[in-house]
């Protein structure tokens, strides 16, 4: 694995390989790893940061970790909230995110596009995705029948009803997305409106129209 070392416990203190011309800018980025007197981070240029990291600059990496670990840690712990995972799981997943960012010569990090999103948002998405992947993998692991609670191992006597097909084009993409957000992700109207950057009334209207279409098509009672 290039770009990262597998020796997780080893803490290196070597100087960076940056050339003299980079020193000043590098120092300013390293200094940005410290908050100001109000506890706020100074602004940084995401593209510049990533460019340095992709070049394998150890000092830039240290500053990057110092500054963005709260973002990643918060995203991981927020995604795990309500699940039985503990502090150790949050620590391991935070480490997994950093590992994912730097492995294979910072392949993932080099995909960051500063014009499309802020570094904080992009890192939040990466951390969330990594955590959800881990949860999915965990769910996929088999559990011995003896270790499983009795109620979990019990067979549901009710057979699932056969699913019908929603014809293509019955719902607009936005209608399908709104129903998905509301009914599957348990978001309220205000949350959906913020996410889709629309008026809450638009969300209500979209949801209502979608439900009317579904009821009408499948002959359900309103």
């Amino acid at each position: 694995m290039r770009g990262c070392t597998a020796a997780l416990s080893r803490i290196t203190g070597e100087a960076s390989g940056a050339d003299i011309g980079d020193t000043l800018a590098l120092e300013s980025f390293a200094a940005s790893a410290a908050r100001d007197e109000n506890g706020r981070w100074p602004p940084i240029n995401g593209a510049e940061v990533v460019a340095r990291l992709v070049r394998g600059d150890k000092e830039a990496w240290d500053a990057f970790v110092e500054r963005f670990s709260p973002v990643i840690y918060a995203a991981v712990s927020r995604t795990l909230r309500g699940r039985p995972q503990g502090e150790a799981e949050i620590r391991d997943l935070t480490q997994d995110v950093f590992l994912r960012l730097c492995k294979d010569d910072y392949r993932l990090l080099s995909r960051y596009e500063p014009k499309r999103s802020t570094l904080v948002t992009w890192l939040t998405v990466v951390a969330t995705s990594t955590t959800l992947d881990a949860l999915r993998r965990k769910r996929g692991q088999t559990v011995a029948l003896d270790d499983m609670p009795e109620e979990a191992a019990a067979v549901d006597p009710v057979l699932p009803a056969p699913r019908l097909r929603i014809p293509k084009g019955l719902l607009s993409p936005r209608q399908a997305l709104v129903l998905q957000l509301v009914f599957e992700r348990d978001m309220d109207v205000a949350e959906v409106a913020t996410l889709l950057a629309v008026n809450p009334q638009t969300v209500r209207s979209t949801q209502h129209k979608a439900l009317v279409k579904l009821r009408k098509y499948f002959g359900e009672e309103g």
Partner: protein
Amino acid sequence: MNGPPRPYHEYGDESGMTGQDRNSAGDKALWRRYRGRAYGPEAAASPDLELIAAFLDGRLTGPERAAAEAWLAATPAAVEVLVAAQRARLSGERPIVPREIIARAQALADPAAPQAATAPGWRERLADLPRLLPMAQWAAAAALLALACYAGFDLGLESGLALDDPAGDLEIAASEGPAFEAEAPLDGLFDPYGSDPFANGETS
């Protein structure tokens, strides 16, 4: 369906929806009954993290956003990431991260990476091939010459022996040692009585 849907102003509260219509169990069940077949082949696709981040930051143009919504509607895994990331963003939490986690993450960066980054990759090496080709040719010629010398020497040695001793007896004799030494133990082996009946000069 019993008659046309009611207009919004007829709904119960200021939100425009009755309790039944607002995330009601019936609506949820209705959606869940049918949504399983609503997803297309994109459902299994891995989420495009850059697109999700751009969507969250509102940096997509109108058509891009519409296309992203269509993609999201067909990709539940992407919606899952989108919603979780949105909730993490809005929470605004910035916890104090334990130093141990920071130190471990900082240790991930390989100090050899700058050298590795400046070392020529396979593309650069391929680009250097024309420059390296004459050297490779000389090396190959030298190796061929050495091989030819060795083969010639070996062949010469074998053919020299063959000329001196066409039957190859000389070589066999040399490997077995002097013939007279081999005879002595044989005498004893083929003497069942342990003595030579002719030793006393008896004659029949």
